[in-house]
């Protein structure tokens, strides 16, 4: 461990944002060259804030009070202009939708070079190299919006590396990826590490990173409270992990399956031989001949590679899209799409797009002003979800987790027979993930059938009874969680696509 070159160091660094509660307290941290360090810990513990110190977003973009010394490759960060950081640190963010500045892949990769006045010929040379390494040649002229999640991630990495920065900071790069793309990400990171890049990641999903990570730094309330080697992390007991709000550090494919106690044979929803075309300019068949049932009190996972038609299926069930053939019935009664609308609740991924009212309570009372028992039901739901104290707040003033629970609550107000959720645990820490599990269990216990679109195998293992696997335009498997077939299916989902 001696004589290692320092890539970045923080000495007694504290930071407080102007507008937000989150902060850093007296951080001492050294990152060595060629090292891969994973920051983990509960949401709001300061992981992103720490990374922002190293890519210049603090102090150049986010304002606040900064104390202590930040050094980057031997230079004091305080003396660096915002563009100077782009030569030293490459950044990859969680949401590729909002980190891409250009519509075309090669423009996106070239962006930092063009901004800083790199000669065009050198930029082209670099793009050539990066495209070669990442097998992106065929994508260079493509529209970034049409790429898969894994491809977007590769492009984001290439864009971050154009100026050959020594350090890469990656903020939850795998949060929106399916299992195969997350495994691909870990291969990419491993190659970068072998090339000598210094890597700093913030991540909740640890199992793909353990083979690469040198250290795992655990943050809590703005301080570093533990530092582990991968072995030490693996040695933590399950209780300890849950107490620290950590997710599973290994890719478990089986576990204690707690099937919902309230399950009955009463059918809530049946899909029979349904097929659907995606409407619009380039209409194509999303899937054909899909049949399954959801029973009362059951929690069923819906998974499959990105683009397999999971969201389309959910929209169809809710009545947002019409089936071309087959039928959907609720509690034994076949219903057309327009009749289904409103009978099935669908909680989508972006809570921001789903909250309409000007207060938390108002959100639940929306369109139900005339129902006499609605206020009592709203109060009960808000109390169960720990939002009652916040009932007069504006939804926009809530934290991400609170918004998500409010969207849940709004979906439950109509007492739907079936509730569908889209990726309720992506980007959540262990504790929040487990509270989603409890929430789903309670819903199921009250008799609702729950369908969860998810890539999260931990959620499947802890909450779900069955797994429906979509792929290649059909329902490929309908299997019990915890069975051998389930384990095999998970392993197959993690294999590279194609």
């Amino acid at each position, binding site marked *: 461990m001696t004589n290692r070159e320092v890539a970045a160091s923080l000495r007694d660094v504290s930071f407080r944002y102007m507008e937000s509660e989150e902060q850093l307290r007296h951080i001492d941290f050294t990152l060595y060259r060629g090292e891969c360090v994973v920051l983990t810990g509960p949401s709001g513990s300061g992981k992103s804030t720490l990374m922002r110190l190293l890519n210049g977003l603090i102090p150049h973009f986010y304002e606040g009070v900064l104390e202590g010394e930040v050094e980057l490759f031997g230079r004091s960060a305080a003396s660096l202009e915002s563009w100077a950081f782009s030569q030293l640190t490459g*950044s990859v963010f969680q949401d590729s939708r909002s980190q891409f500045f250009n519509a*075309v892949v090669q*423009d996106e990769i070239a962006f930092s070079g063009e*901004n800083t006045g790199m000669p*065009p010929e050198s930029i082209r040379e670099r*793009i050539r190299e990066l495209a070669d390494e990442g097998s992106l040649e065929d994508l260079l002229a493509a529209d970034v919006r049409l790429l898969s999640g894994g491809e977007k991630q590769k492009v984001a990495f290439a864009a971050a590396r154009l100026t050959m920065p020594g350090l890469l900071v990656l903020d939850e790069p795998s949060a929106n990826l399916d299992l195969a793309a997350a495994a691909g990400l870990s291969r990419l990171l491993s190659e970068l590490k072998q090339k000598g890049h210094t890597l700093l990641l913030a991540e909740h999903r640890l199992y793909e990173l353990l083979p690469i990570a040198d250290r795992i730094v655990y943050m809590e309330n703005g301080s570093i409270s533990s530092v582990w080697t991968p072995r030490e992390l693996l040695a933590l007991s399950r209780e300890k992990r849950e107490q620290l709000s950590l997710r599973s550090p290994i890719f478990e494919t089986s576990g204690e399956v707690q099937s919902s106690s309230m399950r009955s044979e009463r059918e809530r929803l049946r899909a029979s031989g349904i097929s659907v075309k995606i409407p619009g300019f380039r209409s194509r068949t999303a899937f054909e001949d899909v049949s399954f049932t959801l029973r009362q009190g059951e929690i069923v996972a819906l998974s499959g590679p990105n683009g397999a038609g999971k969201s389309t299926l959910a929209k169809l069930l809710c009545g947002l899209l019409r089936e071309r053939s087959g039928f959907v019935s609720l509690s034994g009664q076949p219903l057309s799409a327009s009749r289904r609308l409103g009978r099935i609740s669908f909680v989508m991924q972006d809570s921001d797009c789903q*909250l*309409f009212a000007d207060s938390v309570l108002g959100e639940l009372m929306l369109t139900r002003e005339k129902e006499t028992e609605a206020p009592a039901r709203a109060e009960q739901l808000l109390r169960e979800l720990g939002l009652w104290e916040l009932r007069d707040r504006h939804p926009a003033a809530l934290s991400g987790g609170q918004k998500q629970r409010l969207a849940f609550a709004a979906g439950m107000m109509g007492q739907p027979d079936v509730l569908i959720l889209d990726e309720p645990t992506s980007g959540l820490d262990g504790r929040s993930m487990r509270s989603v599990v409890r929430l789903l269990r309670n819903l199921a216990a009250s008799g609702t059938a729950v369908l969860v679109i998810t890539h999260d195998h931990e959620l499947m293992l802890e909450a779900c009874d069955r797994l429906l696997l979509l792929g290649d335009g059909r329902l490929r498997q309908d299997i019990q969680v915890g069975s051998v077939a389930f384990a095999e299916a998970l392993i197959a989902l993690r294999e590279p696509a194609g």
Partner: protein
Amino acid sequence: MEPEVRSGRPEFGRASLAVTNNRDVSQARGQRSGLAFDPRSQLLIVLLAGAACALVSWTGALALTFVLALYLAVQGLWKAGLSFLIGMALLAVAYAGSISAGVTVLDFVAFMLGLLLRTLPVVMAAYPLGFVPSGRLIASLQRLHLPKGLLVALAVALRFLPMLRLEYESVQTSARLRGLSASKLKNWKNPLKMFEYRIVPLLMRSLKIADELAASASVRGIEAPGKRTSIYIIRLNLQDYAAPIFFIGATAAWMMWGTGG
């Protein structure tokens, strides 16, 4: 074309080699073929079309549509050119009908149709600009010595608008699920509320996305002083001079000898 890029160098990716030279995205991907224009010349055509539509009569605007359809066709956009032509023809028939009917009620309709007849050619002229990658557009406009702040704002707007559309669709979907659908008549009892339910979520999302986009641009040196470079080779070719000259010539000819004058 640029022989120094093509010869002897490793492949830059089959498609993109063409893009850096003088083509837009769909041309480079082989989805269409045709002449490529510099964005500056394309922008000039838009301005010229705007001026011409203000100067000539509605029959003149109709005649200009044929010139613009030709302009789209040489860029490989003949299908779009044909659609615009048909649209203009239908508009013209409706307009001619409504003014000759002599009914006062139709005056307003005729006025609106007349306005459309004069705006559609401008939309048509601007259509090819939608295919230009933003990197190329900015590099080309930089040659006009426009301030960098303006160019960056333009780039952000270009990136932001399509995203806004997607976000709006997502808000719409969730509004339908919550029984706030705009197609339900009873929801329009309070139109102001309906408006609020669309705008507020969209605003919240936009703020977040704008913030993230700006952060992403900041870490990639958007604020760097000095001249931006570009991977695109920007130059004016023969067609970039020929197209505006032809357009001006055609307009002048119509105004001098055209029937509707």
